[in-house]
């Protein structure tokens, strides 16, 4: 196809132009190709929803609303999945409680405190943290971290045994592989994403607002509370939600350190289970309704994470849009 002399009407890149008769075939073909690749995203998401639901219908129809009961007994053909939902939520909360202050601290450190020269190495450390594969976290978690922290759990557990609230949270039974350990490892894993997103959000605070606060004689902490925080609240919430989504879906590290015990208990140092972990651990030997149940848990997980991610991205986009408009 020769390069056409009567060329494309000049327009800024990205302006949607209807397919015109005068456009050569190759050009239109290319456009269709790129559109198809873009649509692939939507197609895949829809296919995921359809195919996994299809594979789990036998579970949904057999159990109905009983899927939300704490009644998991494959041997007796009982597949109530509440324990796993509980575990997913608990470990995610623990992870957020640890990771959010740390991530915000590092993000503020990078944007407000350290001189430019030291920013690069700190960011490198965060990137290194992000690149450690989940399975390596799990390996280290179960072979090194869990045995070590078990002693700490045991001391705390015996210490608070009997005290009203603390006892039921941190009292025995304690185990190295437990909800809390999974939460800690998850915190390590979601810190990079929450940090880098928070950093992006904080960096959009206009410098002139920060200068306004400093010019009034504010200390750095006062400037952060007066000028930075009001601007970046929304974006930070979005970043935290994205961390939540990631914490809920992280599989292998959790599968190795959570203890594989489908119980609902307030004792955070006790072994537990969560949605992705049970799927990963049990799928190999499962068949029939068992397999359908695991698939169905996957469907639930998919729905949860999609909802959280949609909300999170919407919040982040809205605060970015407000900034551009203001």
């Amino acid at each position, binding site marked *: 196809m020769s390069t056409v002399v009567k060329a494309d009407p000049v327009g800024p890149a990205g302006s949607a132009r209807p397919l015109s008769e005068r456009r050569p075939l190759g050009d239109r073909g290319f456009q269709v190709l790129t559109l198809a690749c873009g649509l692939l995203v939507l197609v895949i998401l829809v296919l995921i929803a359809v195919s996994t639901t299809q594979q789990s219908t036998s579970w949904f129809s057999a159990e109905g609303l009983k899927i939300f009961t704490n009644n998991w007994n494959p041997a007796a053909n009982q597949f109530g999945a509440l324990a796993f939902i509980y575990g997913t939520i608990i470990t995610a909360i623990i992870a957020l409680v640890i990771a959010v202050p740390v991530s915000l601290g590092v993000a503020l450190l990078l944007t407000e405190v350290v*001189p*430019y020269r030291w920013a690069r190495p700190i960011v490198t450390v965060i990137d290194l943290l992000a690149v450690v594969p989940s399975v390596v976290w799990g390996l280290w978690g179960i072979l090194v971290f869990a045995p070590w922290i078990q002693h700490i759990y045991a001391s705390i557990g015996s210490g608070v045994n009997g005290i009203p609230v603390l006892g039921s949270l941190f009292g025995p039974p304690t185990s190295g592989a437990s909800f809390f350990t999974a939460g800690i490892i998850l915190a390590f894993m979601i810190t990079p994403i929450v940090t880098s997103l928070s950093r992006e959000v904080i960096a959009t605070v*206009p410098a*002139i*607002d920060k*200068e*306004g*606060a*400093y*010019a*009034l*004689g*504010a*200390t750095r902490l*006062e400037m952060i509370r*007066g*000028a930075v925080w*009001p*601007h970046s609240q929304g974006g930070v919430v979005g970043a935290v939600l994205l961390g939540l989504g990631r914490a809920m879906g992280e599989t292998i590290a959790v599968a190795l350190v959570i203890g594989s015990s489908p119980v609902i208990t307030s004792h955070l140092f006790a072994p537990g289970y969560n949605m992705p972990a049970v799927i990963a651990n049990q799928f190999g030997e499962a068949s029939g309704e068992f397999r359908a149940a695991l698939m169905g848990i996957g469907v639930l997980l998919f729905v949860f994470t999609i909802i959280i991610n949609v909300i999170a991205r919407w919040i982040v986009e809205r605060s970015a849009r407000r900034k551009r408009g*203001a």
Partner: protein
Amino acid sequence: MEQPEQNPVATTSLPKPAALQESKPVSDTPGVAVFDTKNLSIYYGAFRAVTDVSLTVHENEITAFIGPSGCGKTTVLRTLNRMNDLIPTARVDGDVHYRGASLYAKDVSPIAVRRRIGMVFQKPNPFPKSIYDNVAYGPRINGERNKGRLNEIVERSLRQAALWDEVKDRLKHSGLGLSGGQAQRLCIARTLAVEPDVVLMDEPASALDPIATGRIEDLMHEIKSRYTIVIVTHNMQQATRVSDRTAFFSVLVDSKSDTRTGTLVEYGRTEQIFQDPHDSRTQAYVTGRVG
């Protein structure tokens, strides 16, 4: 707060100054020296941005810095309240004294400096908070918690900034919802709320329409008796309208290294600068021959 707090009284007009000069066009009896710079040079890394500025700013006067763009007027202004500290490579050489104390001595805290020497910026920058919280921000960080006193401070500052009547019914509304002129007056009110000694203004009206500009200039005249004001402006007529003294800055071009360094060319009473400039560069600028 180290100084005894002034009695915050909400008044519609300001008390007459006591025994300090009114702006008299002819006689020159300068008041107390508020700022005193000697051979001040400012560097960004190895680059010398401003060289050899020696001037004295007097109490309760409005001093204007004028000159073409890039001549360092804003840089010098920001040196007076240690705002250049926010730029990592900035460095100051020479003396800068504020009421006899060196501004750049070792144990001087920029926070204490900025508490006394406030700044209004070119583009209005109200915080994304309510109007009330914007003005109350300064007093709050200085420890004022009493609701009654805060209310008085907010009202007094907004009156001084000639904004009270327009916003008194919507103090809880966001400061971001104001027009340009109103937002700038809000920033001025915010600066006045901590009762500084000096107010530095960096082209405060350049982003505003003529009516808003006129309001800001009237405001400057009204508060002059209680504060010392230094204003950077690229509008010569504004300098003649508001200032008692004018400092004319210009650019030295080093043809070998093609660098531009700002410097103070001439400094004197405003009438003298504009009607009888001593330096030819001053004359070229004020007569409009060069931009």
